[in-house]
């Protein structure tokens, strides 16, 4: 898509952590771009620094080298343009479903009748209507994850960063929610960057998969994924799309997994 300004630009980024025991190089010379409305996944071995990369884009950390741009602007700190979904739902147990979904708007001081109605509409649309006044402890894992998604969408960010958001769910729920979240994010025309160690999840959900190496993480490969429009669902992508296995084998090899 020439001429379009990328949603995310990561340019020659390196990051070094300092601790009393010494310094650790987490990321080395990483560059990539994500186009608006694109769904990109990053896979890599555990502990390679995938989440660190998201923290840089979210403005929670500053890179040691290089620059990170979001919508053409250099990232200086957290921005309402960027939404973040954590590894678990992290709903506040003392807040109801609706109150949890509204936390971002409260923090940004944008909570008013219109935005509350918008959030109530989102809850309704995603199967949480009637549960607004429940506490998270009364919901199933899948429902909690949906509340977390609505919480992210509530502030209407352009870009959603997903940090292994399905890791805590059991396998069936995981496939179900994966498909649902993917659909919801596409419906809302979000730019998505998903971090995962699950190769099949990355292939099934994304337009493009980036592969990171062991620490210090470098970008080792990039795959444009095309399974065909008819294989958008989590199961169909895994079981029916012919190219799925080819992508999987290639990424598996690049990850160079040693037990």
């Amino acid at each position, binding site marked *: 898509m020439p001429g379009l300004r990328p949603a995310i630009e990561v340019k020659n980024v390196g990051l070094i952590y300092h601790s009393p025991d010494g310094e650790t190089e987490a990321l080395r010379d990483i560059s990539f771009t994500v186009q608006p409305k694109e769904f990109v996944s990053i896979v890599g071995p555990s502990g390679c620094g995938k989440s660190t990369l998201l923290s840089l884009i*979210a403005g*929670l950390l500053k890179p040691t080298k290089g620059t990170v741009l979001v919508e053409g602007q250099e990232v200086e*700190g*957290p*921005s*309402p343009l*960027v*939404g*973040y979904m*954590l*590894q*678990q739902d*992290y709903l*506040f*147990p*003392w*807040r109801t479903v609706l109150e949890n979904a509204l*936390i*971002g708007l*409260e*923090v*940004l001081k944008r909570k008013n009748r219109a935005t509350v109605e918008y959030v109530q509409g989102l809850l309704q649309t995603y199967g949480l209507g009637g549960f607004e006044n*429940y*506490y998270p*402890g*009364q919901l199933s894992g899948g429902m909690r994850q949906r509340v977390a998604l609505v919480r992210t969408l509530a*502030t209407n960010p352009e870009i959603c960063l997903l940090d292994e958001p399905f890791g805590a769910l059991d396998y069936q729920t995981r496939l179900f929610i994966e498909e649902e979240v993917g659909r919801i994010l596409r419906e809302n025309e979000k730019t998505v960057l998903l971090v995962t160690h699950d190769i099949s999840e990355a292939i099934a959900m994304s337009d493009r998969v980036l592969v990171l190496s062991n620490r210090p993480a470098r970008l080792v490969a990039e795959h444009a994924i095309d399974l065909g429009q008819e294989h958008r669902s989590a199961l169909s992508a895994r079981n029916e799309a012919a190219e799925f296995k080819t992508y999987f084998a290639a990424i598996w090899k690049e990850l160079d997994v040693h037990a």
Partner: protein
Amino acid sequence: MRNPKALAMEYSAAHLAYLAKLKRKQWVTAAARILLFVVLIVLWEVAARLEWIDSFITSSPLRVLNTIYNMAKDGSLYYHTGITVWETTLGFTIGTLGGAIVAILLWWSKTLSRILDPYIVVLNSIPKVALGPLFVVWLGNGITAIVAMAIAISIIVTIMMVYSGFQNVDANYLKLMRTFGASKWQTLRKVILPSSVPTIVSALKVNVGMSLVGTIMGEFLVSKAGLGFLIVYGGQVFRMNLIISGVVILCIVSVALYYAVAFLEKRLLKWQE
């Protein structure tokens, strides 16, 4: 969803039998507790009457009751109990609020908490009762010194409990707030304080007892009024009836204060049900 009452109609006979058994067990426990109390009291009274023990030294349940009755009649019961409850409440409130505020300051500034850490450890380990005479000299022989005693005993524990509660808040909640660009103040109000409510409530429960200890110690030293004064005075004039009456009333007061806090806890922790 979780509504056991809605299911009551569908309980099987086996389950009803199980519930009945459970209820019977509760009954037996309650009955045994009361029985134990009655037996001990009766035994004490009988022993005193038959002169197995010297009731001048051990008093007896009826004498204690009589003392309390007389104190109720001349109003001194309400006067001394009221003073002790008032002093305890003051010490408890100031100690808890003050402790919570210091804990917030320590959370706010990591540097401050690093610097003050050894001081808090030392303050926590010294027996606060030893400071009593100092308070009396500094603050005068009156209620101020007593309340200071109650505060001294409760505030350090509060600081330590509440601060460790703050530190135990899951870091991912803080990360979540940061992704929304939350200020420190917003994080404190929306995450740190509400998630520490259970810790703060258990600090309250500990503090009720602590403040009462401080108040009684203070009353021993100041020796003007209150249940602590009654007890120490009873000792000085060798009136065991008075000492034991004081202790009995103190028991009732401490239980009442504890349940007041437990009631507060139930109100504050609605979401846990």
